């Protein structure tokens, strides 16, 4: 069971809570308390905008446990506007419409469901950007 781990990282999972380095100003995601740019301590919390673009992608056909009902789904490397790169599922998009450079935005969706009686795990995914 991953209840404790999922609970600890829920802030970053639900809404892209990261960190900002007060030495060089780099954004850090996921939070790791060390700046990947200048290697100095970085622990000031920072809310990321959730805007980014598809850096690369693949389609998952053989999904891991808890994700099977959603397969096939596109999985992408997303470059956030603030700099950090992360891996996330794409949603609300047909797999054959995904392309490198596609502008995307973060949404909070169901990531996985632990059987009929377990927890529902929510977290970030990305979808083609809707203009406000």
């Amino acid at each position, binding site marked *: 069971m991953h209840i404790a781990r999922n609970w600890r990282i829920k*802030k970053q999972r*639900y809404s892209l*809570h990261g960190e900002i380095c007060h030495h060089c100003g780099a954004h850090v995601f996921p939070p790791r308390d060390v700046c990947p740019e200048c290697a100095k301590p970085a622990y000031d919390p920072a809310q990321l905008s959730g805007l980014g673009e598809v850096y690369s992608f693949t389609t998952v056909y053989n999904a891991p446990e808890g994700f099977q009902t959603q397969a096939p789904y596109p999985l992408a490397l997303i470059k956030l506007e603030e700099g950090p790169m992360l891996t996330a599922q794409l*949603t609300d998009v047909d797999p054959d419409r995904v392309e490198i450079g596609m502008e995307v935005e973060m949404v*909070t969706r*169901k990531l996985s469901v632990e059987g009929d009686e377990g927890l*529902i795990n*929510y977290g970030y995914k990305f979808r083609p950007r809707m*203009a*406000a």
Partner: protein
Amino acid sequence: MTPNPERNNSLLLQPSRPVGIVGYGVYIPRYRLPATEVSKQWTGGAGGVPIKEKAVPGLDEDTATIAIEAARNALARAGLAGRDLRAIWVGSESHPYAVKPTSTIVAEAIDAVPLLQAGDWEFACKAGTEAIIAAVGLVGSGMADYAMGIGADTAQGRPGDALEYTAAAGGAALIIGPAHEALARFEGSLSYVTDTPDFWRRPGAEYPSHGMRFTGDPAYFEHVVTAGRLLMEQMNRTAADYRYVILHQPNVKFPSRAAKMLGFKPEQVETGLLSGVIGNTYSGASLVGLTAVLDEAQPGDRILVVSFGSGAGSDAISLEVTEKIEERRHLAPTTKQYIDRRVVIDYATYLRFRGKIKMK
């Protein structure tokens, strides 16, 4: 007996501190099931259908995810942060858990935790407006400056049941705050409830049941029309004083007929009547209609909203739009943008999306 000067004898609910809607947000999933896909399955396509199509949630969507996106849109329009909210109340009949609140998931996702009221409300399709009126009370008493009420659902109909044409997914969030910050001022509300056996679902039952002959006259029309009529009487208003009316919309026919009974003309109804193109979003229905109206209303316009929940009851709410609407409505996607973001699915895909196909 001497009259108690503290006693409020009005049938209207009006807070002592003026309040209004400071932000609103909507969410509608992108998938659409045309009603003809349903009629093909069960009637060979013969006979009429009650709507054109309904909004269906994707595999990764539920009432919590719908509520989260609507809540984020409401915060964007209000220019507030999650931490500014003193309450988040979610009304739904399809909460993801039987025990574990949807409201705390929403509160966490929009960074409103931990110092606030949170709770889930349940009253069939009226749970959302009930949460809104509670928020009006909380802010109107001065106990809080901002409170959020949400109505959201991913309604299910039994395959082959009449509800399968219309049971849809979507939701809306309203933030109630002080009237001087409002994009629409709350003028008053009136609620009308009785014990009526029109529609129910027992614990553990997957699909609802309905008392066919109860769904129309004794349930929907009795409650919606009475609540709307009494509210207007209490405020010395008639339908002509309102630019828009939004009634709970289980289909297109019921709200159209009820609006006519209340004296409204089709042009007052059409902007907020969305069930033809998104279906019945249950707790979301009247509130999603309201968001479509707020997307185009002008300062000074009056709006009447009447919800309906089976079991049964209606909340009638009177609003007046302020000049602040202009600067806020473009701060989040409009209801039309969500309606136009549309991908048609067939009946087989629908069964898969709604978990009606059991896999090993």
